[in-house]
């Protein structure tokens, strides 16, 4: 029992404080709007704006051959929509100037005599010029051109062998089968990640600022002179956010499955359990921040100083496996990592307790440690 002389009394005090906190939060319509509408807006924005499958890359085309063959190759190269013709240039130098002026991000240059060379079996060369200021996009553009002309080269090679009366080489082929997300859409990948980011914003920053506000206004000291134990007071202050967090999880998954057609394969119970242990950490960090900040502005900054690196090192945006080894080691200290992993496995892969127990235990351990540390600091500061 935390500090109460009479457990019955503590429970009554706790219940009364929870009621007061819930009333206070719900009464402020603007705060409620922000806690409910903001997650929805974030989900929709992220879901529509983030698309790793880059296409419609503005491309300038320089067809210096102007033969039926070169026109046909360009038509087929642009047919799948990865590259979109936005400009036409006479030669490579002009194409480069157009890239310089932002009229295109890639250029495809076919040399004079391209069609005739290919038909005669003479080697030919396609030039690709890329705007490398966005590496991901230039990779995709280079890949699209290489893949198309690679296939052309391979079929030409087979034709040649056939004409010479030689057998085509027996090449092994790969038959891929994609699990969970067969059309490789980005939204199903992002929504579980949005959940983990959102809960940090809604719980960590709001708790930290809320407590700082009470300190600014002086109401925390007023409550401290009432008979309620400080730790019960803290628990009561955090209770509304546990429900808001669970509600937001429900809201985002529902919106995700309606708007973005995200499969909900796992059990909501497991997801809720994961959310509960995750909230221990996010609320704990919020409390910790409030004990080291003297005003709301500082709480906000400190919250962001925690949230931004934590989001970056959680695997929500880029795979953890692609980080250098020392950073990968750091991610094991990041509660967001475990929740993002668990949420993704539960929602997309139908994982149950047996699959994500490690993540849940890690979250519980981190949560208790952070919350314990924060409560101790809070207690000391109040005493």
């Amino acid at each position: 029992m935390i500090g109460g002389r009479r457990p019955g009394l503590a429970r009554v005090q706790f219940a009364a404080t929870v009621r007061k906190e819930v009333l206070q939060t719900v009464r402020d319509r603007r705060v409620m709007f922000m806690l409910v509408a903001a997650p929805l807006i974030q989900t929709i924005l992220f879901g529509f704006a983030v698309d790793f499958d880059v296409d419609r890359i503005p491309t300038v085309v320089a067809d210096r051959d102007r033969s039926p063959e070169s026109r046909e190759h360009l038509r087929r190269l642009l047919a799948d929509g990865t590259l979109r013709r936005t400009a036409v240039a006479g030669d490579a130098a002009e194409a480069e100037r157009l890239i310089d002026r932002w009229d295109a991000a890639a250029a495809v240059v076919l040399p004079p005599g391209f069609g005739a060379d290919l038909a005669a079996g003479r080697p030919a060369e396609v030039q690709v010029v890329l705007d490398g200021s966005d590496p991901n996009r230039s990779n995709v553009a280079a890949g699209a051109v290489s893949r198309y002309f690679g296939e052309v080269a391979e079929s030409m090679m087979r034709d040649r062998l056939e004409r010479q009366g030689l057998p085509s080489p027996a090449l092994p082929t790969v038959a891929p089968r994609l699990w969970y997300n067969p059309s490789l859409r980005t939204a199903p990948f992002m929504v579980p990640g949005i959940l983990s980011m959102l809960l940090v914003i809604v719980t960590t920053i709001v708790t930290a600022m809320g407590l700082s506000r009470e300190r600014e206004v002086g109401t925390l000291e007023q409550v401290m002179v009432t008979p309620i134990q400080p730790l019960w007071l803290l628990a009561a202050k955090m209770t509304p956010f546990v429900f808001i967090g669970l509600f937001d999880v429900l809201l985002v998954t529902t919106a995700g499955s309606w708007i973005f057609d995200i499969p909900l394969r796992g059990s909501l119970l497991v997801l809720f359990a994961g959310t509960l242990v995750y909230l221990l950490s996010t609320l704990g960090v919020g409390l910790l921040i409030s004990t080291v900040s003297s005003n709301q502005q500082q709480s906000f900054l400190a919250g962001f100083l925690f949230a931004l690196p934590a989001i970056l090192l959680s695997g929500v945006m880029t795979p953890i496996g692609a980080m250098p080894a020392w950073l990968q080691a750091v991610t094991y200290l990041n509660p967001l990592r475990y929740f993002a992993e668990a949420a993704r496995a539960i929602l997309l892969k139908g994982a149950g307790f047996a699959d994500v127990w490690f993540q849940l235990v890690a979250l519980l351990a981190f949560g208790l440690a952070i919350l314990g540390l924060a409560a101790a600091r809070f207690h000391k500061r109040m005493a």
Partner: protein
Amino acid sequence: MKRRLGHFLVRVGAIAAKEVLHIRRDPRTLYMALVMPVLMLLLFGFGVSFDMDHIPLAVADRDGTRASRELVDAFVAPGEFALARRAGPEEAGDLFRRGRALALLVVPRDYERDLSRGAGPRLQLLVDGADPVTANQILAKADAIVRSVGLARARRAGLSAEPPLQVKVYTLYNPEARSAEYLVPGLAAYLMAIAAVLLTALTVAGEWERGSMEQLFASPVGRLDIILGKLLPYLGLGILQLLLVVGVGTAVFDVPIQGSPLAVFAFGFLFLIGMLGQGLLISVVTKNQLVATQAGALSALLPSMLLSGMLFPLENMPLALRVLSYVVPARYLVRGLRGVMLKGNGLGVLWPDLLAMAILALAILAVATGRFKRRLA
């Protein structure tokens, strides 16, 4: 006239000095605002990459011959994949759910016999598609590996496999595809948005929350002076952040400044003016720091990250978002900074972006001061 201007400057300076004093008396705000850019840039520069190697791969080798072992070696030896374990295809679900493997390769029985008989054997590759970027890499890498194994066998069998057609790729501006060069402009936009919108919104909203705004109004200092005085220190802080991001970017990550540094400054300055206006507007409308935070995060931080082209190309987005992006100042800033720093563009190319930022900044300042005056009348 001259004297009135002098008085005006003194009053603005006094309010600004008061705000600076606030910040200096408790320098944690300043430290955090300055640590953030450096920390973020280092993390982004070192940590953000989509290119994965040693992708954990489970293998079911049903053939168990020399040829099949050669194939598996071709997957794991160059370091593209790492052999996670040997497992049957029925275990794929378990492995994927627990994150133990991201793909499972099944080499069929009779793989070697089919190859030597001239029939192309089919390999099965089960891929965890939850992360589309990684899944795409797995598909591309597996395809390339299997193709090169096949071509190597064909060459050994005496069949020439010289490709008659080559694609030569030249990459301008950032040939090594380093993420720092790509991210510095976007990061500058994001961090300046935090300083300019949120910190100002919070400090002005705080005056209202505590009731000290009314006290300030009762003093002989004019309303415009108060506003300018409160905003000036944060303009300075934002410029400091811009210098830090660009400075660390050039010093640590060798990000070039091909164009004029003055142009970088001009873009940053105009952006900050608009963002300060937005922060002011938010504080006037909300008068509450908690609500101001959320409003600022939604109206400034989120669009600065998602709708600026900082991380995700705009032309890839649905039409509605592309249209919306035209009123996001960060869009012009990211383009302008990339143009100046990486491409060496001058104002001849970038003047429309500067103009757009100036128009947006003036519009939001007009709305903000309008609301501010009405609020007090």
